[in-house]
């Protein structure tokens, strides 16, 4: 039985309270979902802000791996990857690549010798319109086990507290493994001599639907020539970009893509834990870098090397980093493209 209707204009408090309650509850639920009521939540905004140097981010540039140079080339699949993944990119054939060599720094003007981590981003396109993007670095393991840990690392390294790093390492002993690489591994004199690693674990899905936990690496054809940071510093702040430009102009540079397959029980969720060296590896193809182009107006400038842009046949695993990276890279992309006029030499064109 419906409530008898009252004439409009008769003031009743109860219906107004119901309306107000519905609206307020919905608005609060929305605000909670947006993170406005939970200031401790690590949002992409907070993570990206933590990457910025004390003077603020370099406007118009990537918020991390800000210094880099574009390349184009090909990925030539030998067909062997198809046993592990149904992705088109592993079918025998040659696919166009846009990529970027970069340094792991938020400062696009950093001198090469000041930056320990070097990276490589690739976007491989197949004729069916699918893409595989990957952003790799030359460290064999990552610095921290979780995105939360990475945020704490950024906070500690930017902190003025004298004990901040000590406290961070006490809470994240896994960082010592990475520190061992930072201090012990030789530097090389060229982007072309680096061994780039996905670090994160992904799942390859084969045509039978079976999943294989994998990591991948790009192994250089060029022989690494060790160099001390001091010697690198003497060659100039932008030596690596000059060197790779000349080297590729003289001849294409190649890397073999090697996929490592995990054994059951291998740690897939923690990129600080390397897998034992006897794990099965499959060479799936060759990356050939054919041409170097300056980042300014280059083909990689407005590409986000989001490691979760994957073709059907490659999926994310229980490794928490690709999701965090995707969220942060997107934030960085939205910021820097909105600041495109700050990027030297390109502003007028856009």
């Amino acid at each position: 039985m419906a409530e008898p209707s009252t004439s409009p204009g008769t003031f009743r408090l109860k219906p107004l309270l119901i309306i107000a309650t519905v609206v307020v509850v919905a608005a609060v639920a929305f605000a909670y979902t947006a993170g406005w009521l939970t200031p401790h939540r690590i949002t992409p905004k907070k993570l990206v802000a933590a990457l910025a140097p004390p003077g603020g981010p370099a406007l118009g540039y990537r918020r991390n791996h800000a210094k880099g140079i574009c390349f184009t080339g090909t990925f030539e699949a030998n067909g062997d990857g198809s046993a592990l993944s149904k992705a088109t990119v592993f079918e025998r054939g040659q696919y166009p690549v846009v990529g970027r060599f970069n340094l792991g720094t938020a400062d696009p003007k950093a001198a090469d010798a000041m930056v320990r981590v070097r990276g490589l981003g690739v976007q491989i396109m197949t004729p069916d319109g699918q893409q595989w993007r990957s952003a790799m670095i030359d460290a064999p393991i990552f610095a921290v086990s979780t995105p939360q840990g990475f945020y704490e690392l950024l906070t500690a390294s930017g902190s003025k507290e004298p004990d901040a790093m000590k406290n961070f390492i006490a809470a994240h002993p896994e960082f010592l493994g990475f520190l061992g690489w930072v201090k012990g591994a030789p530097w090389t004199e060229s982007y072309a001599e680096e061994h780039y690693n996905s670090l994160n674990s992904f799942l390859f899905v084969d045509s039978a639907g079976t999943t294989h936990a994998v990591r991948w690496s790009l192994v250089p054809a060029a022989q690494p020539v060790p160099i001390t940071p001091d010697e690198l510093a003497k060659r100039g702040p932008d030596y690596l970009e000059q060197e790779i430009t000349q080297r590729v102009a003289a001849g294409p540079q190649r890397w073999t893509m090697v996929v490592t397959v995990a054994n059951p029980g291998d740690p897939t969720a923690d990129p600080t834990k390397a897998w034992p060296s006897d794990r099965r590896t499959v060479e799936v193809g060759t990356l050939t870098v054919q041409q170097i182009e300056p980042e300014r107006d280059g083909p990689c400038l407005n590409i986000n090397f989001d490691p979760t842009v994957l073709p059907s046949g490659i999926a994310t695993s229980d490794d928490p980093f690709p999701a965090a990276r995707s969220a942060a890279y997107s934030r960085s992309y939205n910021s820097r493209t909105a600041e495109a006029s700050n990027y030297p030499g390109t502003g007028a064109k856009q």
Partner: protein
Amino acid sequence: MTTSRKRFTAPQRLLHWLMAICILTMLFIGVGMVSTITSKYLTLVQIHKPLGIAILALALIRLTLRIFYGAPALPPDLPEPIKLAANLSQYIFYALMIGMPLIGWGMLSAASYPVVLFGSVHLPSILPLNPSLHTWLWRAHHYLAFAFFAFILMHVAAILFHKLIRNDGIFETMAPVLTRDEPK
């Protein structure tokens, strides 16, 4: 365009309530996904894209039905400003239901992201790679999402006002089931 019917047709009502669920889900997913770095981020993004395209398709069907079947007339005693607001709100909702998915699709295109719906199924790029276009669309998508949610809150408040205070039959035009006795 109005019809002599007292209620929207059954397909219109079905679409209204189905889309209400989809759109509210979509708005919560949207604000949720951009505020987390957990693995939920990817799950939410993977729902956001196909759901957005589903809303676009449903909105186009709904618009066709709306043009074909029309809408029940508003009560004649409704004050003019409320009539105006009621009519205007329908235009705003249709514009948002159709515009938001297109803006999202265009925004991804302008950033050269593949628009993957599921598996290997993806949509073509509808715009060239262009940072300033991307920025414009990204901002529109962002601010219109909050405007959309605000309009929904107003819409809910207004319909509750019609039902609980005026009880003028407007709620019943779209109610999934009849909630009051039909006038004899």
